[in-house]
Structure formats: C-alpha cells, structure tokens
C-alpha cells in the first residue's frame, strides 16, 4: 500500500514535469520572441518599454540561450520561490493574479464533484432497480439531454431566462460589496449563495454521464453470480442491493473521478467565461487572446496540476476501498 502510494506519487511528479514542459513549449511555439511582442504592445500603447525592462526580461529568462536552458530558468524559480513570471498586460507578478482564482477554481471543482455524486448516485440506484419503468425512461431521456446540451449554451439560456423574467443576470461569484473585500465569514456565505447556479450548469453533463455509467454498472452487477448467491441465502432485496452490487459498482465510479475532474475543470472554464466567474478560465482566455504568455502558461499549468493531483488522489482512494485493486497494485 505504502509502496504503491509512493510509486503513484512518483508518476505524479513525472506528469507534473511533463505538464510544465508542455506549457513551456506552447509559450515558445509561436514565431518570434515574446519580448518583441511585448515591446510592440507597449509601443502601440504609447508607453515604450525602457531598455532596462527589456534587459531585465532577457536576463531573467535567458532568451538568448537554448530552449532547455530557458526552461530551466523558468521552472527553477517557479518551484523554489513560487515565481510564475510576470504579466505583461497587468504589469504585476502572475502569482498575484492567479492565487485567488486558483483557490476559487479548486473550491468550485470540489463542490461540483460533490454535486455530481450527490445527485447521480441515488438517481442511478433508482433507475437501475426500476429498469424499463417510466422513471427509468425519464432519467435516461434527461441524461441524453444533459449530455447533449453544451454547458455554455445552458449558461446562456439561464442568463437570458433570468434577465427576461427577473430582470437580473446572475453572473459572478460574489455580490458587488464583497468583490474586493478581504475574506470573511459573510463573504464566504455570499459565495455559497452564488455557487449553486454555476455548479448545476457545470455539473449537469458530468451528472448525466455518471448516472449512465453507474446505472449500467449496477445492471451488470445484478447479473453476477455473487448477487445470486447472496439472494439464495435469503438476504432481503433492498439490503442485497446496498451491500453487494452497489458496493462493487462504486469502485468504477470512484475511478471515473479521474475522468470527471478534468471534465469539470474543462467545462467550468467556458462556463466561467460566460457567467463571469472569477476563476482561472476567464484569465486563461484573456491571456491567450492578449498573448500574455506567462499568464497563459501558468493558468494552463495550474489547471493541469489540479486535475493530475485530483486523479492521483482518486486512484489512491480506490486502492484503499477495493481489495482486488489493492492486491493487483501492491504486488
């Protein structure tokens, strides 16, 4: 168990390194040095960059050096000092831009995951035990629609609907008075009040997918010999369901967390843009369009780190819960 955890964490570090390399190369792929881009931008804005500024950047990132040296110059301060680089557009360190948004993204993703499981598990249980009933068909139909409606479209519909009927557009995660206020209990409560709408929008597709997987998993498990054995020994149906197939089917569900989390982070990116949530998504889009490369790379990297760490955690959890997986993995 311990050795597995250590090994898994080892893979994680490899993956994180890969992510940083991928992000770094994406920065460097567009032709031309971004220092040039930067100085043209400043020129266009009417405030030409000082030679000192440009020299600092060149020295800081070693732009005259080979790529792997540049990578090294970028990653070392990042890891050792949390220095993510500098935003050209905002004229401040990337980390100051990113920190708050990162926490909100994490909170938002976790709440969305909880929502997905809280809804999909009971619904799938009902659907599987009432196969071919009216309720089952309705759940299936809703599931198909949930999977087919792109979440940003759902967000748009929601905005239009509420603008039309209530005269307000529910954007953002805070009321205006808390926007720039320091963290307090009231601000936290305010956040909780604003969470449900975007969480439902982001979680819908994941919920539909999870219901589908869990339902078919349960139906498969119902056919298994060990369920028949348990029934043959006189276990009442309801208890049988909860103790055996549900317990076994939960494992693939936990392992789907590895797919669900990237999906939620992915979905929340675009929904956050539409609904104006102060998470990483809008920052990423803006920085990509403005070619604010360090912000873009750092945002992309943090999203990747978030999902990779989440997937590792779900993997370790699965190993704790399933004795078969435990045996396969620890041997």
């Amino acid at each position, binding site marked *: 168990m311990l050795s597995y955890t250590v090994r898994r964490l080892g893979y994680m570090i490899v993956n994180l390194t890969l992510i940083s390399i991928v992000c770094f190369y994406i920065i460097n792929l567009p032709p031309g040095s971004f220092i040039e881009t930067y100085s043209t931008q400043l020129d266009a804005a009417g405030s030409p960059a000082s030679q000192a500024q440009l020299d600092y950047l060149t020295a800081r990132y070693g732009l005259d050096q080979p790529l792997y040296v540049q990578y090294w110059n970028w990653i070392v301060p990042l890891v050792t000092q949390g220095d993510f680089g500098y935003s050209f557009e905002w004229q401040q360190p990337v980390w100051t831009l990113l920190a708050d948004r990162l926490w909100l993204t994490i909170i938002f993703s976790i709440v969305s995951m909880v929502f997905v499981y809280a809804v999909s598990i009971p619904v799938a249980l009902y659907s599987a035990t009432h196969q071919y009933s009216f309720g089952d068909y309705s759940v299936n139909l809703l599931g198909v629609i949930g999977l087919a409606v792109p979440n940003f479209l759902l967000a748009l519909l929601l905005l239009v609907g509420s603008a039309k009927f209530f005269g307000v557009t529910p954007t953002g995660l805070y009321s205006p008075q808390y926007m720039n206020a320091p963290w307090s209990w009231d601000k936290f409560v305010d956040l909780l009040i604003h969470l449900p709408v975007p969480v439902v929008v982001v979680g819908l597709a994941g919920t539909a997918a999870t219901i589908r997987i869990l339902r078919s998993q349960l139906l498969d498990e119902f056919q*298994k010999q060990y369920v*028949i054995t348990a029934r*043959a*020994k*006189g276990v009442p*149906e309801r208890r049988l369901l909860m103790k055996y197939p549900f317990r076994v089917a939960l494992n693939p569900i936990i392992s789907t967390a590895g797919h669900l989390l990237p999906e939620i982070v992915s979905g929340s990116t675009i929904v956050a843009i539409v609904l104006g949530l102060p998470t990483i998504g809008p920052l990423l889009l803006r920085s990509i369009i403005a070619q604010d490369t360090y912000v873009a790379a750092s945002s992309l990297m943090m999203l990747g780190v978030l999902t990779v760490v989440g997937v590792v955690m779900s993997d370790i959890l699965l190993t704790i819960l399933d004795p078969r997986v435990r045996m396969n993995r620890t041997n």
Partner: protein
Amino acid sequence: MSTSVIQPTDSIESTTAPLLEIKNLRVVLPILEGDLVAADGVNIQIKPGKTLGLVGESGCGKTMTAQSILQIAPKIAKTSGQILLHYADRPPTDIVALGKNDPELLRIRGGECAMIFQEPMTSFSPVHTIGNQLIEAILLHRTSDKKEAREIAIAMLDKVGIPAPAETLKKYPHHLSGGMRQRAMIAMALSSRPRLLIADEPTTALDVTVQAQVLRLMRDLQRDLGMAILYISHDLGVIARMADEVAVMYMGSIVEHAPVRELFRSVKHPYTKGLMGSAPRIGKKSGEPLATIMGNVPIPINKPTACGFFPRCPVGIAGICDQVVPPLVEVAPGHKSACFRYPQVLAAAGLESGTTNE
C-alpha cells in the same frame, strides 16, 4: 400431458413423505428468437435425507429447475406449476406462489433450502471478507447474536476442513484457492442447517483430486446433518457416487427416473443409454472409440409437440415419436421412463389398443 401416474403401491415412493415436491414445473424464457422452454412440465420429489441426482447435458434446464426452487431464476423467466415444500407440522408452502419480498420466501432461501453453485471463483462478493458473508447468512437464519454467529462460522469452516478458520474469516475470496472457496461456500450453505441442499455442479470447476475431496465432504456432512441433497451434474460418474435416485433431464423434461442402482443396471431410455455410452471408463478396451450421441442438443425455442430426443434417437418410431410427447410412466418397479418403446408409455399417451386409463 397426463403424467401424474405415481402408483401408490410402489415401495420406495410410499415409505416416506417427500420433503420437496415439484409439480408440473414450466419455466419459459421469452428471448429474441421466440420462447425458450427451459423446463417443460417437470415432476420431481425429493425425500428427506436422501440425494436426488439430476443429470443432463448443458442447457437441458437442470439449473433453471434448481433456481426455480429458490425463485432466483433470471427476472424474465416465467414460471408456472407448483413447488411444494412440506413440513412435519403444518401445510406445505407453494414456493412458486410466493411474492418476491415475502418473508416466507426469504426464510426458505438459505434457511430451509440452501444452494451452492458451480463457480466458486465468482460466488463470493470480491469486496467483502469470507467472514462477513458467512456470518451474514448465520445472522439471517440461526441467531441474532453476533458473537455466537462468529463462533458458528468458525465451527462450520472447521467442519468443512478449512485450516485456521478464525483467520480465514478475515480473508477476501481471492486469497483462497478454488477448492477452499467451494468448501467455504458449502460451510455458508450449511451454516443454517437447511433441510435441503441444492448443489448445482459444485465440483465441475475444480480439478479432479479436489473434486473427490469435496464430494467426500458433502457425503460426510449429509450423514452428520441429515439434509436432503438435490445434486445437479452432467457427470454420470459423480452422480453414481452421490445419488440415491437419479432423474435424467433432456430439453426441459425428465425422460427417465429411477433409483441409482436400478438405473445403472438397466437403462430404460435411449438418451440415458447414449449418455452412459459416451462416458469414458477405466477398463474399457483401449483404442475402442467412445460412443457419441448423434447431433447436438436442439435449442428448445418454440418447441414442437414431439419427443425432444427423436431427431437424435437411434430407435425412434416415425409417426409416433415425432407426433406426440411421451409421458413419463413407470415401466418397471420404481423405474420411470418417457420412451414410446415401452408399451406402458404408449398406453399412457392413449395410443395403441391399450387405452385403458388416462
């Protein structure tokens, strides 16, 4: 199909009242191609403390018949007929008529009748310990005291010959070998002291030496605990060792039924004869090819009214066997057969001159 021709004069039949009586059981599975008839008017009696062997090829309906006794056949199966469980002190229960959440059914399942299955590898839940699953059965039927249940569990595991029973309780199924798992399965089935044990090919998936051990174990346990066994197998050798009486099943019907010695001494159905001829035996002249039964078991979809064995039968009578279903009747003392080669069968079907009764 007038098959209830049980002669009350017969010696074996009358001495003891049956424990379980299956009357005219019919199990139909509606599938894509049509109705698959898994059991077609099965009549069997199981006597207390005795073993009835149910033999037949794969797909002949043995398992469906057995599963019907506990109402654990697949959901789509449509069951009709009667399965009567008799008691010494109260009227019998018809299991077919019980609802799926009837407390009486839950009491019978695992309590009155327990079952062990063919696949010891998949019969236990992979994510619960042996102890968890074994103690659950005991708590359902024997005692509500957890400590006592644990002690019974340890005693049962010891009885079926599992070394270090207390440690085994904490193990997961994948820690045990196939033979050990089947022993644990038997311990679980017998922990509630059932009156009937249904064993559905319990040794098929085990290798031969383990098979012999498990068979011996079941016989010893039967002697100690006195339960009746319905032993299902396709292996006549195993049946010969285990059974007191044998019922031979073909395409959902019982085609021959006799005490085990009587059956092996004088076979009275061409299908049984074919089965015996195709079993390898030590002592057979080497080089002599094994006999086979011509053709395959037809798939019993939209079954016609005829003898199911007719297309493969070496002695079939065209015009009779392919027109009428032969009833199962006594053709020798205590020996029933469903083959028109015996005048009693013809008579029972109302053919030939001897149309006396039924």
